């Protein structure tokens, strides 16, 4: 093979590589490479020539990740509009947080339960009334757990708690499109203690009013 043929072949391969790369690449997403700078899989002999060889010298790559713009994955249109379906847009866009107005309305739960206790219903009703008379506001409901469950179980349970509150608000006439939920599991305790007195304060749902800046 002479030099010219070789060059031509390389150019052709390059064009094919670029072409196939572009056609598969979704917009606004950092492509995830098929491999990494080494021959070993992470489950295998990384110390023997894998990307982490030399350890601390690579730390920069770990501590400075590059973010890419988020994207909407879209919602199945056949499911949209159900009262339990969460809204698709970001309710926080253009709004500021008001954590004070409903501080006293924090809803508390029984251990390992997401049902609303009758003692908590009036707190939720007051929030519903406020939302009905303040059309400009939206609401985030934060769900939390005590530390006695396992972590991911608690993350789901705390979301279930926030959703129970949201469903109550919707039943009281608040538009489902104005209320979103944020689950924190056991990661944001209100009380750092390790007894029932602390746990009972940590099993909770908090109301964060989202209001336009001019009205705050």
């Amino acid at each position, binding site marked *: 093979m002479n030099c010219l043929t070789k060059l031509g072949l390389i150019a052709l391969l390059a064009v094919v590589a670029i072409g196939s790369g572009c056609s598969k690449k*979704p917009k606004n*997403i*950092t492509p*995830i*490479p098929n491999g*990494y700078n080494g021959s070993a*899989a*992470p*489950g*295998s002999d*990384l*110390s*023997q020539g*894998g*990307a*982490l*060889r030399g*350890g601390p010298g*690579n*730390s920069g*790559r*770990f*501590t400075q*990740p590059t*973010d*890419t713009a*988020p*994207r909407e*994955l879209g919602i199945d249109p056949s499911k949209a509009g*159900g009262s339990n*379906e*969460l*809204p*698709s*847009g*970001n309710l926080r866009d253009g709004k500021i947080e008001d954590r004070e107005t409903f501080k006293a309305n924090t809803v508390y739960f029984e251990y*390992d339960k*997401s049902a609303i206790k009758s003692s908590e219903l009036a707190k939720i009703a007051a929030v519903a009334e406020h939302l009905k008379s303040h059309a400009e506001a939206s609401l985030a409901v934060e769900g939390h757990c005590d*530390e*006695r*469950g*396992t*972590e*991911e*179980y608690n*993350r*789901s*349970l705390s*979301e*279930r708690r926030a*959703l129970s509150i949201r469903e109550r608000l919707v039943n009281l006439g608040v538009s489902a499109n104005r209320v*979103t*939920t*944020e*689950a*924190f*599991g056991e*990661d944001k305790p209100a009380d*750092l203690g*390790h007894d029932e007195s602390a746990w009972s304060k940590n099993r909770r749902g908090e109301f964060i009013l989202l209001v336009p800046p001019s009205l705050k």
Partner: protein
Amino acid sequence: MKLPSLLQAMAIGAAVLPALAAGFDAEISGQAVKSIPIAVTGYTGEAAQVLKFDLEVLGFDVVPAAKAQFELKAGAGSEVQGTLIDTGNQHPLFARSYPGGSVRSQAHTLSDDVVKAVTGNAGIARTKIAYKADLGGAKEVYVSDYDGANAFRATEDRSITASPAWVPGRLALLYTSYKGGKPDVYSHDLATGARSRVFGFNGLNTSATVSPDGTRIAVILSKAGSPDLWVSNIDGTNPRQLTTTKESESSPCWSPDSKTICFVSNRDGKAALYTISAGGGEMRKLSTGGILNCTEPDWSPDGKWIAFTRAAGEFTLYVVPAGGGDATAITAGEDPSWARNSRTIVFTRGRDRARRLSLLDVPTRRVKDVNRISGSCSQPSWAR
């Protein structure tokens, strides 16, 4: 395999395999098996420390030569060297030198060779783990060697980062981060630092885990109004809802053939383990022999076992046959993750935001803590 090494392997297998392999599957859920006594002679400093740790994690007891079934002898070289001897007949099983890399990696490689020669199974001393560390405010994801050495902080978002899971066969993680104010799932390539949001729906996006064949992600999403199990393509596209319970699902894990997902649901009031076809269908309760409050399942890579956490006041690790049956309590702790050898488990123990990671050798029940970073560590994931 070349003929001499094949013959050597067969000879080794005939000589020593029955000592460990015979009752392994029976013993994993029964009584603890005995450790294999080994003498480790002539090593000093880091090499001695690493060899002792590695071998004890894999079911050996480091003892004086007079009581040993095997002896590992150091050589004269500046690099780590090792001669493994069967003390019964004084036959050497191998004599090797480990040039290159750090003393630490040389010693890990040697201990892997000892494990391979004695048990016939590949070692795990050069594998990685990822975990969540509570630094007293921020919760970040770390990556380290399996013994906790060479810890890297993979995230620095000063937010809550949780539930790291390795992408099989890749130096990449999925994890949940609150950097956007709520739980979203990110994909993070550790070699390049490139990161992208994979699931960012309103509500809960968490517990993402990639199928062993690398083609799909199982994840908990609440976008339909309840925390349900969903399966998407590997890039997060085309999410399909697998469960529709009113109650919450959590912690999915995959069978090694990527066909079945085991997860937690409290559909019937108490947390229990369920399985479902990854393509959809009925969710089926997995029998755990009457044990309630079962969470955090992890399927062993050989497909035989599911380890899980019973959360009932205390956290206890259990192992149950993957088809269901009687569950066996193994040790106090939570959130098990199997190594690729289907024998060793990394898990969390301790309470009160002072948790640490430990390694469990299931057959011998031995537990050893990994090197600690400051902070409370949990949610380990073993790369495999």
